[in-house]
């Protein structure tokens, strides 16, 4: 039982970590919480599902399609809703992301209907047995994809030119602009990157839970935002730790409390944690 919860926790933790990073990179550069992240996750899942259903049933192609859909959605979101609002009070952008999220959810409901769609099962054979717990190939792939994405993001941010630009913009917006960094393009890229992460998480989640519906992103987005806050909201390693921690806490928590309350366990713990340490696990000190 312990091993089973551990495996489930790590699998779900990977999904939370991907989404939490999506929150963290946007918050890190723009100091803005993108409440549409959950909806981009949903969009990614839907595009992945469409590829599997209408083009070719290949999980990896679906992941790519989801990433692309997330990238484009993130780009559109930034281009049409945030560039215009950059000098305005932050609440305007925040509420704008909510409007966008709602718009996406409802648009998908109108287009595809509110009922659940299912993904054909991929790689459901057992990869290896841990104690008495069978781990499926899908779970292995899920964790590996998440780790690969996380590592490549780390390389992108710390080893490339665009990563340097992102770090500069996140440190100081104005000065970065004065140094000749095209901040509009960097911010646009960051948003799109965050969207791609959410899209990948969406496809992986839809394969794992085998359910795709327009409101799938709401709870997932909220929980991953908890994970990001857990890690301090501005730090990528923090978001990763927060994501895995949330996955584990949730799965072990269900053993103690009724499963109906599963979605709020992490949240309640987080609120208590925040009262003790408002800046999160690895967050920087700020007012």
């Amino acid at each position, binding site marked *: 039982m312990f091993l089973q919860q551990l495996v489930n926790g790590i699998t779900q933790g990977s999904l939370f970590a991907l989404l939490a990073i999506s929150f963290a990179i946007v918050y890190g550069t723009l100091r803005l919480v993108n409440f549409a992240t959950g909806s981009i996750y949903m969009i990614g899942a839907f595009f992945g599902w469409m590829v599997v259903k209408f083009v070719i049933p290949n999980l990896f192609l679906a992941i790519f399609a989801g990433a692309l859909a997330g990238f484009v959605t993130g780009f559109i979101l930034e281009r049409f809703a945030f560039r215009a609002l950059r000098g*305005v009070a932050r609440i305007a952008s925040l509420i704008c992301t909510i409007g966008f999220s709602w718009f996406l959810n409802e648009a998908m409901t109108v287009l595809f209907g509110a009922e659940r769609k299912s993904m054909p099962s991929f790689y459901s054979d057992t990869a290896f047995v841990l104690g008495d717990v069978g781990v499926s190939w899908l779970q292995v792939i899920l964790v590996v994809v998440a780790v690969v994405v996380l590592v490549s993001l780390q390389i992108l941010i710390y080893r490339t030119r665009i990563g340097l630009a992102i770090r500069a913009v996140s440190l100081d917006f104005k000065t970065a602009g004065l140094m000749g960094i095209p901040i509009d393009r960097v911010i646009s890229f960051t948003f799109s990157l965050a969207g791609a992460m959410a899209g990948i998480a969406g496809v992986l989640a839809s394969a794992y839970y085998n359910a795709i519906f327009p409101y799938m992103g709401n709870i997932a987005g909220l929980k991953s935002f908890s994970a990001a806050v857990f890690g301090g909201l501005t730090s990528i390693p923090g978001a990763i730790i927060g994501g895995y921690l949330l996955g584990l806490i949730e799965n072990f928590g269900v053993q103690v409390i009724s499963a109906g309350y599963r979605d709020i366990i992490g949240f309640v713990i987080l609120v208590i944690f925040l009262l003790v340490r408002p800046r999160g696990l690895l967050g920087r000190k700020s007012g």
Partner: protein
Amino acid sequence: MQTLPATTPAGRMKDFFFRYRIVTAILLTIFLVALPFLLGNGYYVRIATIVGIYVILVSSLNIIIGFTGMFSLGHAAFYGIGAYTSAMLTVMAGWPFWAALPVAGIVAGIFGALIGLATLRLQAIFLAFTTLGFGEITRIVILNWRSFTRGPLGIAGIPIPTFFGWTFDRNGYYYLVLVLAALTVAIIYRVYHSRIGRAFVAIREDETAARSMGVNVFGYKVLAFTMACVFAGIAGSFFAHFQRFVSADSFANLESFAIITMVALGGTGSIVGPILGALILVVIPEVFRFLARYRGVIYGLILILVIVLKPGGLAGVKGIFEKPKAAKRPRKQRRPKADSSAPGGRI
């Protein structure tokens, strides 16, 4: 109040109404009292009643978002808490409606105060996060705590209120919500133009400056938040007795977003704005029934378009979504477009 001559059409209109305010008030009162007879159709009276509920909800959320500049994303949770409190007190404990109504407001206010006390010392974003989560938690707890709330079945058979032996009919509900909404707007108006209201606005404009002028920022924030929750609870209690059935679905996060859209459309930080916002966004979907499927899409679009294109909302006051004055630089200095209030973080 209006000392400077108004130059905009909206300002001139406001001046006009201000000059003839007594006549306007009398005419408006007569109109609102006569409305059920003018509408004739019972269905229309019902819609007018729903508008009244939303006027209370939107005006109260405006205290939080528009006056004080805080992010609350879970207003429907307090509305739901009020509705459930009232439903449980009257159905399970046999209380009369008139005793349950204020208690519903108080219980919602207590929850609001607790959340405010816990999060309002932290960065502003935590209130947004906690209220959003609280909305979800409220729904999940209502659905799962079967022995207490009857879970997904909801609470049915909520008694119809009586007034000195007279049982409420459709018009009775309308007049009751009219009185409640008028009281809410009047109280909010008086608070806005008092010392407390000025403290709220000072916090919205510049928290540090407000603090340095001796405003108890934390105290006033908690006060604003709690006040708004009390009104939401009262609206919930009325809703429970009007609908005579409550279930968790009526108070999901979507409901909170609808209320936010109404605030944004009407105009944040204004008294009339929320009333306009509630009126338009309740009536339009009823008129264009064939658009019912697209209700959510339209709300989302309206929210984005209002914020991007017309940040002041319909009331046209300087709302919280408009650019601060300092950001309006001469055209020549195109770069940096940076937002001085968003210093950026660290990855």
